[in-house]
């Protein structure tokens, strides 16, 4: 049997084993941290010679499988907050539209790429650093000794003052419905600007702003990503014809197995260990992006599209 496979929509031949391995690795991260992994997978597919537009659209297709697999595993373990996930999803869809409009305005001003790049580095740097410091504090037993005084009280007053308070039993928290809706809009806007699924922004938002338990965060994030990526896949297939199902199928066979393994490891790790690992990955991605901006590229042109 040939170890190479020709992708009909991408018009390229790639290594079957490499694709399966890539799917497995990103699926593992997906099950472990509740992220889609698009921020990792799409650049790697582009490096393999796949057009950016096809890489991004087909990646969304395979994330549907990984997140369905992960959501099922987490739902069985009772760690998906469907009510919270649905509200975040609604906000995220609205935020996506806001982000697309914002990018259009910035493109008109000729500043879109600088803005996108700055948003990427600042968001990744801030999220990664905060998570790393916070989880190190937790491990040393200093959690909530500091920081629980000044800002959280202002934040708590603000949050508690919002109307339409409701309980989220699965997450063991009470919030106004405006909280997940508003944060969904924020994450959806940032996702659209950065061109990614937004899992690595949504996870810290759930942990720190919605105060959800880590294990519920991962399952709920996957539940939300499932719908976001299904929507992207159908739109890309219908409008741009850029979904390569053969590529997605090979990736998803690797990723669904990886997602299950990731979910199993997730159950064995403590919340602060998960946070540290996630923080390290976010910071590594940020450092890689920063290097990409600082080091002169070999070739000054590249194909358009992708994340």
């Amino acid at each position: 049997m040939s170890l190479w496979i020709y992708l009909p929509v991408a018009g390229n031949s790639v290594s079957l084993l490499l694709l399966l391995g890539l799917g497995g690795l990103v699926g593992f991260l997906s099950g472990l941290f509740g992220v889609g992994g698009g921020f990792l997978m799409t650049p790697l597919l582009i490096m393999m010679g796949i057009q950016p537009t096809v890489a991004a659209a087909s990646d969304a297709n395979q994330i549907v499988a990984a997140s369905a697999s992960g959501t099922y595993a987490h739902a069985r373990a009772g760690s998906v907050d469907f009510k919270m996930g649905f509200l975040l999803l609604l906000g995220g869809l609205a935020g996506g539209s806001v982000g697309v409009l914002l990018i259009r305005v910035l493109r008109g001003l000729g500043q879109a790429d600088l803005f996108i790049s700055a948003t990427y580095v600042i968001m990744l740097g801030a999220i990664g650093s905060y998570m790393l410091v916070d989880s190190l504090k937790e491990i040393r037993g200093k959690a909530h000794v500091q920081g629980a005084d000044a800002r959280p009280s202002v934040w708590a007053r603000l949050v508690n003052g919002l109307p339409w308070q409701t309980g989220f039993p699965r997450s063991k928290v009470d919030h106004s419905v405006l909280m997940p809706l508003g944060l969904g809009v924020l994450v959806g806007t940032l996702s659209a600007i950065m061109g990614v699924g937004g899992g690595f922004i949504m996870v810290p938002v759930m942990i720190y702003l919605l105060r959800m338990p880590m294990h519920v965060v991962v399952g709920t994030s996957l539940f939300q990503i499932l719908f976001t990526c299904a929507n992207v896949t159908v739109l890309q297939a219908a409008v741009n014809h850029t979904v390569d199902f053969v590529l997605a199928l090979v990736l998803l066979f690797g990723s669904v197995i990886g997602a299950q393994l990731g979910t199993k490891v997730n159950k064995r790790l403590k919340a602060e260990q998960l946070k540290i690992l996630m923080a390290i990955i976010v910071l590594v991605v940020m450092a890689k992006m920063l290097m990409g901006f600082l080091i002169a590229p070999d070739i000054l042109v590249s194909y358009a599209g992708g994340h």
Partner: protein
Amino acid sequence: MMPAALVRAESSLRLASQTVPLGMFFHGSTVHADGTVPAGYQLAVVCKGPPGELKLKRKERVLGLLWLTRGEVTFARVPSLYIVDTSAQMEQLAPQSTLDRLGVGYSSLEVDATDETPRDRRAGELFAELVRLKESEKLFAVDQHGVRLQERTAGLVDWSADIRLPAKLLPGAYEVKLYGFRAGDGELLDSRRLNVRQVGAVAAIQVFARKWGLLYGIGAVAIAVAVGLLTGMAFGRGAKGGH
């Protein structure tokens, strides 16, 4: 000197295959080309894919520090594939103006690629970068010893070349042309069409994706969800059995 019509009559270009099938396990291909030409000629074999407009992102240094994408650059007509095999160094074949007129060598592509109305100034500046990008994907290549010549009797020479088609190959009507050079002049001696087409499941999926995009997208999502859920159930049962 032999009349041009007679040279063409005595020259030939044969392709081992007129069609390149893009099946599920395609991973690049070599098309053998050979024929005869009158003695005394140096040769160039050019394989060219269908031309099309190409939009690329261009990177520039911003604030003297950061390399960022700063808009797009549009190339008017760029062949999807451009592979040149020659029997001698390009500069030994003919003057640059002759090579450009015939379409042999990268610089001959520059006029078509950058000739746009209104003209994209950056396309001219970045043409060399376009070539480097295409070379990195093996879609553009020049092999200056790719054509082999072998003298035979009656003033004729046998020639042969292997045209290496890369793994990243799009379907379409490609053309293979044989050029002859002597005494600083050159001419087209013969040409053949090479059909690159998708076959079997690859063709079926491509047609489905193009013609019924919405249905294709819904189907892709449904299969992805089904595979995800089935794997979840399989692992779930496995975990139960283990306990």
